[in-house]
């Protein structure tokens, strides 16, 4: 296999593994802040304990998630150089500062205050600790801001000039706030909110099914349901806007997503098809007439450009077509489940124990649904930019590694083995922590609460 293909696969493996963790931690950081805030504000002692318990349990999940995000992120920062040495040589003047600001303003902020946030309760004041929690949450968001600024710039480059084949910055405002950046940032933040929400929902439901849930799990479940019910429709709207933006700037990506070969007026929405790049047609089409034009152009007879207008420079159709459908399908499922779940929970008078068993099974089954949608979405974005690394300007093949393909193959295999093992371990440990959360750290909290109010105050104030 050739080095380019292997380098792409290796990089894809890495970003796939890496994105799992930020997609949780961006929103989970803010959720922790919410739990922390509810704990501070709660007047009822039992509620105070519940929110504290939620905070502590999910802090551990955050720590684990963050650690895996860091180590895979460090790996990625090296792979820019090892896999795409030509990328930095050509685009370094623009990509460099953006990456640099990510490390300087986000990475250090998170890493610096994480220690205080995780282990510092007993050593710093309440407000300082709250401040550290805010800064960690803010840091993860800043990280997303810079990385998405760079990624969006690669999709819709702006504010640059090319001198002797090298990119130079003309306007940093145009570079950072390039045409697709706002859509992409909102889309990612909402994706994280949904991923995090379904993790909260799924784990709480699992705890109830296993008979290890406490009142704390009930509060977490309700928080997750409300978050998902709000974020899911917002994501649909944001996704629609993002799609329109993509149509404007990267029509070939939309053509591939929709599986449209010939430029068509009143293009149908394909629910199912197997696009065939070689034959330049689709097999087994199942279509809704005019719907694609209606969605994308808000006009049933609007004209959509087909792939044949972009000879030899359009992305591979099959993976894009299906990634998009998986993303949207999962999104719709999330919307339905969160709304039905919330309605049901409300009808039960917010009584967790009345939640029907099949509903809990669906919740638990969808614990990692956010991962599926996020990864599929990233594939749409990243594969959709091919064969370019910077849309329309720099081809991926031109910046690939000069390292022998055997080296890349060996390291690819190593990464895949390590990543799969860690993924299994991560999910296994989340499950284990969910099942033992109560026994381990809080077994006697309620008891001491009943008997000795002083003990509770100590717990309550992180003394």
């Amino acid at each position, binding site marked *: 296999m050739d080095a380019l293909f292997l380098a792409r696969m290796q990089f894809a493996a890495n970003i796939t593994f890496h994105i799992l963790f930020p997609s949780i931690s961006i929103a989970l950081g803010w959720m922790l802040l919410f739990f922390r805030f509810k704990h501070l504000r709660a007047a009822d002692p039992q509620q105070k304990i519940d929110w504290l318990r939620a905070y502590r349990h999910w*802090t*551990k999940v955050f*720590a*684990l998630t*963050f*650690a*895996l995000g*860091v*180590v*895979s*992120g*460090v*790996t990625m*920062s*090296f792979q*820019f*150089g*090892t896999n795409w*040495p030509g990328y*930095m*040589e050509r685009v*370094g*003047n623009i990509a*460099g*500062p953006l*990456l*640099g*600001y990510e*490390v*300087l*303003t986000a*990475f*250090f902020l998170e*890493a*610096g*205050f*994480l*220690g*205080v946030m*995780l*282990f*510092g*309760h*007993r*050593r*710093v004041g309440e407000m300082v600790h709250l401040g550290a929690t805010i800064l960690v949450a803010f840091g993860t968001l800043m990280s997303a801001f810079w990385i998405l600024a760079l990624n969006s710039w690669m999709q819709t480059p702006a504010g640059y000039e090319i001198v002797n084949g*090298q990119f*130079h*910055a003309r306007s*940093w405002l145009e570079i950072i706030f390039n045409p697709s950046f706002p859509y992409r940032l909102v889309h990612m933040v909402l994706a994280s909110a949904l991923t995090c929400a379904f993790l909260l929902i799924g784990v709480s439901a699992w705890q109830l099914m296993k008979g290890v849930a406490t009142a704390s799990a009930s509060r977490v479940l309700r928080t997750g349901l409300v978050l998902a019910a709000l974020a899911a429709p917002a994501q649909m709207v944001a996704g629609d806007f993002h799609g329109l933006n993509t149509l404007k700037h990267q029509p070939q990506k939309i053509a591939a997503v929709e599986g449209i070969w010939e430029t068509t007026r009143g293009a149908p929405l394909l629910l199912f098809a197997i696009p065939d790049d070689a034959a330049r047609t689709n097999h087994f089409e199942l279509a809704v007439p005019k719907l694609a034009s209606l969605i994308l152009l808000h006009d049933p007879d609007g004209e959509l450009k087909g792939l044949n207008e972009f000879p030899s420079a359009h992305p591979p159709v099959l993976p894009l077509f299906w990634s998009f459908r998986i993303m949207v399908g999962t999104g719709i499922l999330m919307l339905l489940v969160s709304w039905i779940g919330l309605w049901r929970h409300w009808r039960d008078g917010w009584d967790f124990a009345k939640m029907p068993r099949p509903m809990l099974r669906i919740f638990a089954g969808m614990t990692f649904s956010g991962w599926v949608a996020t990864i599929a979405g990233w594939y749409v974005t990243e594969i959709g930019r091919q064969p370019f690394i910077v849309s329309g300007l720099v081809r991926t093949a031109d910046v690939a*590694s000069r*390292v022998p393909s055997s080296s890349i193959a*060996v*390291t690819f295999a190593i990464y895949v083995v*390590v990543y799969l093992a*860690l993924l299994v*371990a991560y999910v296994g*440990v989340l499950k*284990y*922590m969910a099942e033992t959360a109560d026994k381990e750290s809080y077994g006697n909290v309620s008891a001491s609460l009943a008997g000795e109010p002083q003990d509770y105050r100590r717990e309550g104030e992180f003394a």
Partner: protein
Amino acid sequence: MTSMSFDEVLPLIFIGLMGVSLLVYVVSDGYDLGVGMLMHRATPEERDTMVASIGPFWDANETWLVLGVGLLLIAFPKAHGLVLSELYLPTTLMLVGLILRGAAFDFRVKAKASRKEMWDRLFIAGSMLASVCQGWMLGRYVSGFGEGWNYPIFAGAIAIALPMAYALLGATWLVMKTDGALQGKAIEWSKIAWPPMVFGLILISMATPWISETVRERWFTLPAIIAVASIPVTAGIALLTVRVVLGSSAVRGALCWLPFALLVLVFLLSFLGLSYSIYPFVVIDRLTVWEAASSPDSLKIILIGVCVTLPVIVAYTGFSYRVFRGKTIELDYA
């Protein structure tokens, strides 16, 4: 000496920043990698204390590597491609080591108790793998990625010496951060790691000029030799003092911080020596800082960010060390 324009000075500022980042990385991740490697000599309870001593810091420590490599990537893209292509396999293995270590650090206390032993082993193995790879990479880098029979031996020697230096640094960190039986053990570990570290440093100091003619000329011509001789002499005195203090009873009391501080000084001196040897190359004898640098405009943009954020980073890093000052107590999420 002709004066340089600001645009010509910029690459020098950035190579300096990069060097400082990597120095901070080597010292800070050095001690926590060292603690990781020493865990194979400790009991399960001692392991918990050892991990607790580095727990609040390792994340931020590793970030300096990202900044160092990031600056190489950002400020010297040509060198970045060259260096990382040459070091492709050891870089990957180092990353695998760091991945295993970072993951195991968190998993060991969260997974089933019966799995803790396995995660501890992975933590130790990851620390060793990362250290050995960094040694090998340093050796290859210092010798300008030369080809020939002597180069792999040189890189191999450093691949052994650097983990020893980390182990010594980690052991003296524990002398400072722990007390009781574990502190006693840490003193013993320091004494064991001291001779190989000193031997390694001497070997490198002798072999580097032998491997590279550029370095030879730098160090062994008059009058430079008189001026720069202060570096190895001071380092030698510091290392001897470390050994003396380790042997005295004061190391269990008021002077527990001294060996660690002196070793940091030795690392700083080694860094200065190395910088002196290499300047003004990014890749010795092949690529100067000016040849490898990005455009002045981009460097200026990052420099603004560095000037604003670096003092803040230093301040909150200091804050974090102050919060967790003193002897290590058990870590819990509270």
